[in-house]
């Protein structure tokens, strides 16, 4: 067997990744196009970005979206972490199948179904639709993604550290906050970020569950896109892509550093045992 990548592998990687990235790169480049026609290049310009700052509707929508994403990601991360703890640590209990079903189903559930069903719930209980209904809807589906992310870290977790602490008389809750939580923190941060971007992205569920005064950025983008491609929308999209890309890169650097630190700490703990 030949070691190292073959030509076939390299070519398929190159084609695959250009397919993944070319559309986004083109979108970013054309957001700096001076002309209004998006397909004809007319020189570099940042005029569409300054035009955005005048667009109050868009700015309002961005503010709503950020607030929804922040609150829903935070609650979803807490609930998702709890759900992951239940799935990994609580073994068999009454209703476990239903529980794990409810955690995994939203991962693949078509958004139109989730959106419609939540809306009908809010109408049935006469809950005023708007900011909070969108937030609750986002918590519900993103907590399941958060649970899966935290769960994948928990299954590889070395429990002996926690057990050692409890053998030394540390109460379980304290052991959780002092030992388990710091160790699974990178996964929790990743879960929060995933929940945040899922909420930032969502068009379908937000469209169903929203009410007056709670128009989110994807809803604004969608209604603009239906009328055609415009450089302003390219500019909004570029900003969103940039924010997410920077966020993900920073987070991956932080988690890498933390992971290295954790491994060193675990080695030291093992050496001192």
């Amino acid at each position: 067997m030949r070691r190292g990548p073959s030509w076939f592998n390299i070519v398929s990687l190159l084609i695959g990744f250009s397919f993944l990235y070319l559309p986004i790169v083109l979108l970013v480049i054309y957001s700096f196009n001076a002309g209004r026609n998006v397909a004809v290049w007319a020189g570099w310009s940042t005029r569409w970005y300054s035009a955005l700052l005048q667009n109050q509707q868009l700015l309002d929508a961005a503010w709503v979206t950020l607030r929804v994403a922040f609150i829903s990601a935070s609650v979803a991360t807490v609930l998702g972490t709890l759900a992951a703890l239940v799935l990994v640590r609580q073994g068999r209990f009454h209703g476990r199948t239903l529980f794990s079903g409810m955690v995994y189903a939203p991962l693949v559930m078509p958004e139109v179904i989730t959106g419609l069903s939540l809306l009908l719930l809010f109408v049935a209980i006469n809950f005023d639709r708007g900011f909070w209904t969108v937030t609750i809807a986002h918590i519900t589906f993103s907590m399941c993604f958060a649970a899966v992310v935290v769960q994948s870290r928990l299954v590889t977790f070395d429990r002996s550290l926690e057990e050692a602490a409890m053998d030394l008389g540390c109460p379980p809750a304290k052991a959780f906050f002092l030992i388990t939580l710091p160790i699974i923190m990178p996964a929790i941060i990743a879960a929060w970020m995933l929940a945040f971007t899922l909420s930032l992205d969502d068009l379908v569920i937000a469209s169903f569950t929203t009410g007056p005064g709670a128009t989110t950025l994807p809803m604004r983008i969608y209604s603009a896109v239906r009328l055609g491609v415009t450089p302003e929308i390219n500019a909004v999209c570029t900003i969103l892509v940039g924010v997410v890309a920077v966020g993900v890169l920073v987070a991956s650097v932080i988690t890498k550093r933390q992971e290295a630190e954790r491994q060193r700490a675990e080695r030291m703990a093992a050496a001192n045992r």
Partner: protein
Amino acid sequence: MNGFSTSRAGRLIVRLLPYAWLLVFFLLPFLIVFKISLSQVTLAIPPYMPTFDLVGGISGLMDSVRQLSFENYAFLFSDRLYVLSYLSSLQIAGISTLLVLMIGYPIAYGMARSPRAWRPTLLMLVILPFWTSFLIRVYAWIGILSREGLLNNFLMSTGIIDAPLTILSTNIAVYIGIVYSYLPFMVLPLYASLERMDESLLEAANDLGCPPPKTFWVITVPLSLPGIVAGCFLVFIPAVGEFVIPDLLGGSQTLMIGRTLWAEFFNNRDWPLSSAVAVILLLILVIPIMIFQNMQQRQQEKNS
């Protein structure tokens, strides 16, 4: 003996919070959808009847129950639009899933066979588009595929074609959109199962004189089967109910059930009928979803 789990009360609280949340905001809504799918549309707020009022007591409730009917379902199956929407959704999702598999497999294979030092970066590169907005990624294709778009401009300036191709607003654009958007969902599980594979098996086959293509079909593919199945479910199930892609990239002739449901709800304001559409869609997807859940659970039990 760990974490919260030592004290029974602690365990119960940890379990109760997410359990209750999902019961109220995930399971209960489905029951309501089912109930409303048996109602009739009216010009009122909310636009369906009967509504369950607890004011009328038990007899009022029974009255309401008697007003429920399967009329919406009968209508769904008598109207070709809905039946065709379901069938063409399944067809588009099925073909797209195969395409994603065919494109994703070489990428995942290339990643798994790349030098160990490259792998985290390659993995990151696959995950990154998944973090950028779905809507934006679909939108990016409009600018590329439209009549005056970048692809046509490029092909005409290089002289490959004389007249612009019509790709946007056809099913081809929908396929491109689904393949593009769902590619990471396929590559990630495939990569996970290919990376775990024991390479010495391939060497053994090679030593015994098995030609590489046969080695691929006899050893690599069967061993990556869990990844293939997981990837296919992750693509197929959400793709059946896809709304954004057929709406933005497809044409008026592109029938997909997610789009039909959206139109029924937002344009025709027929809540009972759109509920019935959702219930049937859920019934179609319930078996794949259950298989998917089972696999997730088994995988998790294997890991722990």
